[in-house]
């Protein structure tokens, strides 16, 4: 609910439904009857945040406990934000309408680097001191989770603790600890030191970082009994993991308004550019029975008529056709459609398409990621050109005529020829269409080539790689835009500038905290939104603080450099990543986890594919 003061603003802003709460299945408790209140903050708009599966899982998991109450908070869009500031209204949570500053825990999910300014801005709107050191007493515990937590160092000064890995159990464990500490009247410091002993909990203030003269890290030393290395949390058996039996159903349309059923966690592929592919190991599947039961429960409790089987790579689910057949025993009758969020080039077959009734005939998207075979071998994207052309040919026969292909530019060892090969591949897809006698007649083919700039990320074999400078990326974009070989091809590329900034924060360290703080002070936020992103303003922040962003983005690192994230342990051995990096530069591929164990180290968790018979 919202206050009377907020209500007076609602008709002055776009989409007021973002700010009112009251949705079906939202959880209302009596605040007198709960011991610990958790504000789950998503640092982006309502529509983005409400489409996020992690929020739904943790919202359910925390609210399962009668004496905890988790509420949702989203970043108000700039129109609403301006009015709230003008009226002196603080950021509030949607369920109770209470100010975020009344909450024990303020939790952020860190999904992408460009949301960091929104994180700080939300703390500011809530009226909570930004720095961990400025918050006192056992209250206002600012916590974070999500993929960016694998290197949270640029945010280390602002957070009290981070959750590494799967959050559904450790979040609750930390809240239990807080509850106990409250009852025993322990101090904030005592609580944090105890929390640091829980597996998956990283308390940044318990680590002292020192630097060399050249700006690289000298050492990161734990104190007060904090562990040398913080190990991520892993749910070993997905069938036994908590999964919500209901979702909050938004009143307004959001990006993904449907049942999301997580069918597996992790990825067998080991694409060398992909951080998620390493962070979420080991590869763990849910069983058909569990997925089926969860889908039924969710459809019944939400009224949704679409199920999306989500994961990093759903076509890698070992019994996908069987799973779809099982779901079809009831989905048709219930008028529910089943969709897959993305498809691998080698995962597409007419048999599969027959089972996915919701795929619109208009557009299909694949991600070959690179144009030349050499380049695809470097990044270990084990997709052959022949396979792609075969797949699109099948798709054309089945009636599709719009294909979208995703690529990256700025990959390690990339030459202008590799970039050119993106266009050549696009042209070949066009040719396949016109050579296919069974193509849908009357319509031409449309092939869209979309090229993003590569951002090297921690915990990948490319974590040592200096990102291409913006000039180099612009040159490569010119190659793409310069000589498009067919009128049927459309080429898009996006933001070298946002990719540069992403690269800075992805591999940044604690010395970036003042940069973020000043950026937010100058009103920079919603960097992921084109209409808000202001690169010049960002550059002036770096300049004024004499911080060189190229040191983080473009600098090539040696294998023996100590990284800001080296004390965080995701089960992936550094030696493995070094070996993978070497193989990449030699153009050698690595088989996927199902074919052969590559020995990454994730087997230490004793779960999933690592311990199953291959």
């Amino acid at each position, binding site marked *: *609910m*919202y206050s009377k003061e907020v209500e*007076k603003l*609602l*008709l002055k802003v776009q989409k*007021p*439904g973002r*700010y*009112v*709460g*009251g*949705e*079906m299945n939202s959880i209302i408790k009596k605040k007198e009857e709960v011991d610990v209140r958790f504000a789950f903050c998503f640092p982006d708009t309502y529509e983005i945040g409400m489409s996020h599966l992690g929020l739904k899982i943790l919202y359910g998991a925390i609210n399962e406990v009668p004496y905890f109450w988790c509420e949702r908070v989203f970043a108000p869009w700039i129109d609403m934000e301006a009015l709230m500031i003008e009226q002196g209204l603080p950021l509030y949570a949607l369920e109770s309408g209470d100010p975020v500053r009344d909450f024990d825990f303020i939790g952020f999910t860190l999904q992408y680097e460009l949301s960091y300014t929104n994180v700080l801005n939300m703390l500011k709107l809530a009226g909570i001191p930004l720095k961990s050191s400025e918050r006192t007493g056992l209250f206002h515990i600012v916590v974070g989770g999500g993929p960016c937590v694998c290197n949270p160092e640029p945010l280390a000064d602002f957070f009290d603790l981070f959750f590494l890995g799967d959050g559904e159990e450790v979040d609750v464990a930390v809240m239990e600890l807080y509850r106990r500490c409250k009852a025993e009247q322990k101090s904030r410091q005592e609580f944090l030191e105890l929390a640091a002993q829980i597996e998956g909990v990283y308390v940044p203030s318990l680590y002292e970082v020192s630097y060399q003269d050249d700006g690289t890290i000298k050492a990161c030393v734990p104190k007060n009994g904090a562990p040398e290395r913080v190990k991520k949390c892993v749910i070993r058996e997905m069938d036994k993991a908590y999964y919500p039996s209901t979702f909050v*159903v938004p*009143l*307004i*349309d959001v990006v993904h*308004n449907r049942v999301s059923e997580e069918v597996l966690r992790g990825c067998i592929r080991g694409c060398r550019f992909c951080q998620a592919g390493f962070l979420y190991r080991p590869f763990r599947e849910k069983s058909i029975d569990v997925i089926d039961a969860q889908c039924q429960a969710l459809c*019944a*409790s*939400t*009224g*949704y*008529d679409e199920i999306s089987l989500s994961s990093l790579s759903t076509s890698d689910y070992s019994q996908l056709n069987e799973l779809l057949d099982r779901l079809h025993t009831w989905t048709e009758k219930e*008028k529910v459609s089943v969709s897959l969020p993305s498809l691998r080039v080698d995962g597409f077959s007419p048999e599969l398409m027959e089972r996915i009734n919701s795929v619109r005939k208009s557009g299909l998207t694949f991600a070959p990621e690179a144009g030349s075979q050499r380049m695809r071998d470097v990044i270990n994207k084990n997709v052959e050109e022949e396979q792609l052309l075969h797949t699109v040919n099948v798709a054309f026969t089945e009636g599709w005529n719009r294909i979208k292909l995703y690529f990256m530019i700025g990959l390690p060892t990339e030459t202008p020829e590799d970039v050119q090969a993106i266009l050549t591949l696009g042209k070949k897809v066009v040719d396949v269409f016109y050579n296919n006698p069974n193509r849908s007649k009357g319509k031409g083919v449309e092939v869209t080539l979309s090229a993003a700039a590569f951002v090297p990320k921690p915990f990948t074999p490319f974590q040592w790689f200096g990102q291409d400078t913006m000039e180099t990326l612009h040159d490569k974009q010119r190659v793409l835009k310069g000589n498009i070989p067919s009128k049927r091809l459309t080429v898009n590329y996006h933001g070298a500038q946002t990719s540069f900034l992403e690269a800075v924060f992805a591999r940044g360290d604690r010395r970036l905290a003042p940069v973020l703080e000043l950026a937010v002070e100058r009103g920079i936020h919603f960097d992921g939104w084109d209409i808000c992103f202001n690169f010049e303003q960002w550059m002036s922040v770096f300049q004024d603080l004499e911080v060189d962003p190229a040191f983080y983005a473009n600098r090539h690192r040696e294998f023996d450099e100590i990284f800001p994230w080296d004390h965080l342990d995701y089960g992936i051995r550094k030696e493995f990543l070094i070996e993978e990096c070497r193989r990449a530069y030699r153009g050698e591929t690595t088989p996927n986890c199902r074919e052969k164990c590559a020995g990454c180290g994730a087997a230490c968790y004793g779960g999933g594919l690592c311990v199953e018979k291959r």
Partner: protein
Amino acid sequence: MKNVRIWFKKDGPAKYISHLDLARCMGYVLKMARLPVWYTEGFNPRIHMTFAMPLSLGVSGEQECMDIRLTEEVSYSNVTERMNRHLPMGLQVYRASDPVMTFNEIQFADYTVELEAEDSREIADDLAELLAQEQITVMKHAKKGAKEFEIKPFLNAVTMDITGSQTVKLTLCLPCSTEGSINPNLLLEALKKYKGITPYASVTRNGLLTKDHTEFL
């Protein structure tokens, strides 16, 4: 197969959702309630729902209605109860009935506009002056763009009550039909244009009326 008219209220958080969002939401609710609703036949079957008159975003509705079709016999009280079990805050079904009239018999709607201001007497005076004018024109936004529109003829029966030191309550009856409607917010536009004031207003559509100003059933 049976046509059923669902009567509901829309206020609180639910008044801030658009007509399209309302329709989607009712679809979810009907599904959650597992009512034997009839689906449209076609490539993408949808629950058959038709709404009487869309309500503007931000306006509360006291007696709104929509029609659905049921493929099996369900008692009206059961329909009401099952829907209410799942409806979000601000939406409430208070009755289900046979559709007595057709939607194109709706010609008017009754509205209440509650205004809040520093001083209710001042705003009442402003309103009285405004309503006494020979002409009241405002910009009306339509699909083809904005154009000048004379609303004075529709404002002859406005009643005004000072309900508190800072609140004034207006009641008015405006055309509301499939051929065209007058939005009560136009009165607020006029207040802004002629008197330069923008008081906070909560607008409620109290009911739908036929051409004889009798209750739509």
